[in-house]
C-alpha cells in the first residue's frame, strides 16, 4: 500500500471525523496546546529580546542561553518532567516553551540591534522617550525579522506538540502514538499529514500577519 492510500483511507473514514477521537477535536486540542505554549514563550522572550536589543547589552548571555535551550531534547525533558511533576499539562508545556524561546529571543534581539541607527538617533534628537522609540521606531522597523523568529518558533511548537500524546493528552500526536502502538500505519500517516497541514497553515497565518502588520515602507512595496 502506498502512502497516498494510507492518507486517502484515513481521511475518508467517517469515523475519523466525529467524537472525542475525531479529527476536528484532535486538531482543536493541538491548536490549543500550541497557542498556549506560543503565548507563554512570546510573553517571556519578546520583551527580553526587545529590551536587550534596544540597550545593546546582554547579547552574549542571550546567545549562550539560546544554545543551551536548543540543546535540550524536548522528549527527554518531557519524560524527566513527567517523572518529577507527574501527570498534567505542565510537563507538556515546559518543553514546548523551552523549545520556542531561543528562536524568538535571539531573532528579536538581533532584529532590534540591527535597526539603522540614524532614525533612532533622529527620534532621540526629537525628544522621544526610550519606550516610545522602542515601540514606534525600532519595533516597526524590526518587525519582519521579529515575525520570522516567531514563525520558526510556532512551526517548531506545532510539530513538537505531538509529544503531549505520550503522557496521555490529546492533540494530533494521539494518532501517531496510538497508530504506532497498534501498528495501524494508516493512522500514523494520517496524523503526520495533519501535523504537516497545520504547520503549513501556520506559515500562511504568519505570511498574512506580515502583510497586515509590516509597513509598506519597510517591506519596500
Amino acid at each position: 500500500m502506498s502512502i497516498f492510500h494510507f492518507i486517502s483511507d484515513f481521511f475518508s473514514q467517517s469515523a475519523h471525523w466525529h467524537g472525542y477521537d475525531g479529527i476536528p477535536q484532535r486538531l482543536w486540542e493541538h491548536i490549543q496546546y500550541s497557542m498556549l505554549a506560543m503565548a507563554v514563550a512570546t510573553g517571556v522572550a519578546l520583551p527580553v529580546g526587545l529590551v536587550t536589543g534596544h540597550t545593546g547589552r546582554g547579547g552574549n548571555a542571550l546567545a549562550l542561553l539560546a544554545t543551551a535551550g536548543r540543546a535540550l531534547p524536548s522528549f527527554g525533558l518531557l519524560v524527566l518532567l513527567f517523572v518529577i511533576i507527574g501527570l498534567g499539562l505542565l510537563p507538556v508545556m515546559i518543553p514546548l516553551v523551552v523549545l520556542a524561546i531561543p528562536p524568538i529571543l535571539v531573532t528579536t534581539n538581533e532584529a532590534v540591534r540591527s535597526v539603522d541607527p540614524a532614525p533612532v538617533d533622529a527620534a532621540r534628537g526629537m525628544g522621544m522617550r526610550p519606550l516610545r522609540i522602542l515601540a514606534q521606531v525600532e519595533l516597526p522597523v524590526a518587525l519582519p525579522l521579529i515575525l520570522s523568529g516567531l514563525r520558526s518558533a510556532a512551526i517548531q511548537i506545532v510539530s513538537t506538540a505531538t509529544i503531549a500524546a505520550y503522557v496521555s493528552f490529546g492533540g494530533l500526536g494521539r494518532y501517531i502514538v496510538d497508530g504506532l502502538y497498534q501498528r495501524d500505519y494508516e493512522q500514523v500517516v494520517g496524523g503526520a499529514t495533519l501535523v504537516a497541514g497545520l504547520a503549513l497553515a501556520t506559515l500562511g497565518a504568519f505570511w498574512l500577519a506580515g502583510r497586515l502588520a509590516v509597513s509598506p515602507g519597510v517591506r519596500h512595496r
Partner: protein
Amino acid sequence: MIRFESVTKRYPDGTVAVDGLSLEIPDRSITVLVGPSGCGKTTSLRMVNRMIEPSGGRILLDGEDVQQQPVHTLRRSMGYVIQHAGLFPHRTVADNIATVPRLLGWDRRRARSRALELMERVGLDTALARRYPYQLSGGQQQRVGVARALAADPPVLLMDEPFSAVDPIVRKGLQEELLRIQQELGKTIVFVTHDIDEAIRLGDMIAVLRTGGRLAQYAPPDRLLSAPADAFVEDFLGADRGIRRLSFFTSGGLELSSAPVVGEDDAPPDLPTAPYLLVVDGDRRPLGWADPKRRAAGDRTLIPYGRSFPAERGSLREALDSAVLSPTGWAVAVDGDGRAVGVVSQEAVAAAIRAAHAGQGGAPEDAEPAGVR
C-alpha cells in the same frame, strides 16, 4: 542666544573631543561649525540638545543652562537634522514631518495640515506626502528631514552635515533653499560641515575648529577670508581664498560701457577705443563678440562670449570669472532677464577689486554684502 562657556568633552576612553570651547551664537542667524574630520563638530553640536553631556563648562540657551532643563522638552524645542536625514522608514513623508507636533499633542488633522504646509515651504511637491522614504531621492529625503525639524516651529535648528550625502548640484539647491527659508523664518541655526565652501556660502558666522576640539577662529566669512587667524585656518581655507573673498563685493559699482553693444543688423559704430563689439539679438540677449574691422568687411562670424554676470545682484567674483572666461577679456553684464546691459574689461574689474579692498580699509566686515554669495 546659545552660549558655550569653556565647554569640554572628554569621552570615557580619554579622547578629548572638545576642549574649552567658548562661543556666542547670535539669534536668528546661521552659525557654521567647520573643521577637519574628528575635530569635535558633531560632539559640540550634540551637547546643545544634550544628546551628549559635557564633562566641563556649560551651554546657555537664552541665559539658562541647558543642563537644568528637562531633556525631552529641550529636544522638542530644537529642530535636529542629521546626515542621510534619518527618516522613519515605516512612516509616510507626511507622518515623518508630523512627528514632533504629534509628540507635542497636536491632533492628527492639525499635524497633517502642518506637514503639508512644510512640504511646500521646503520645496517638496505635496503629492509626495503619502510616499515612504525609500521612494524618495536623497535630496528629497533631506528636504523631508529639514521639514520634520521645522514642524513644530522651533526657534533653534541644529544641523549636522545635512547636505553632505547628496551630489554637488542637489547640494547647491538645498543650500539655496535653506538660505531662502532662513530669510523667511529667521531661525537660530547651528550648522556643522567639513566643507569650507558650504560654510562660506551659508554662514553668517563661522567657527573653525582644529583637531582636538579647540577653536581656531570665529568670524564672519568675509573676515575669515581676508584675515585668517593663523596658518591652520589659512591652510583650511584653501589656495584661492582671495578669489573667493570677491564674492562679498558687489558688482553693482562696476562702470559698464554700453557703446560696444550692437544689434545683429546694425551698422558697426565707429569706436576706435573698443577692440570688440558685443552683438545682441532683437531682445538684447548677447550672441557673441565681433571684430569691428572684419565685420565692416562683411565677415559675420562671432566669437563665443563665455558667460555673463548679473550687473546689479552679482559679485566681483562673478564679474572677474566672466572676464577671465571671455576670449576677448571683456565681461558681459546682463540684467535680471538676461538682456545685455554693458561690457567691462578685465582691467576695469581689476581696478574695481583694488578700489573695493582699499575702500574697506582692511576692515572687510563692513563690506556691503553682495546679493549673491
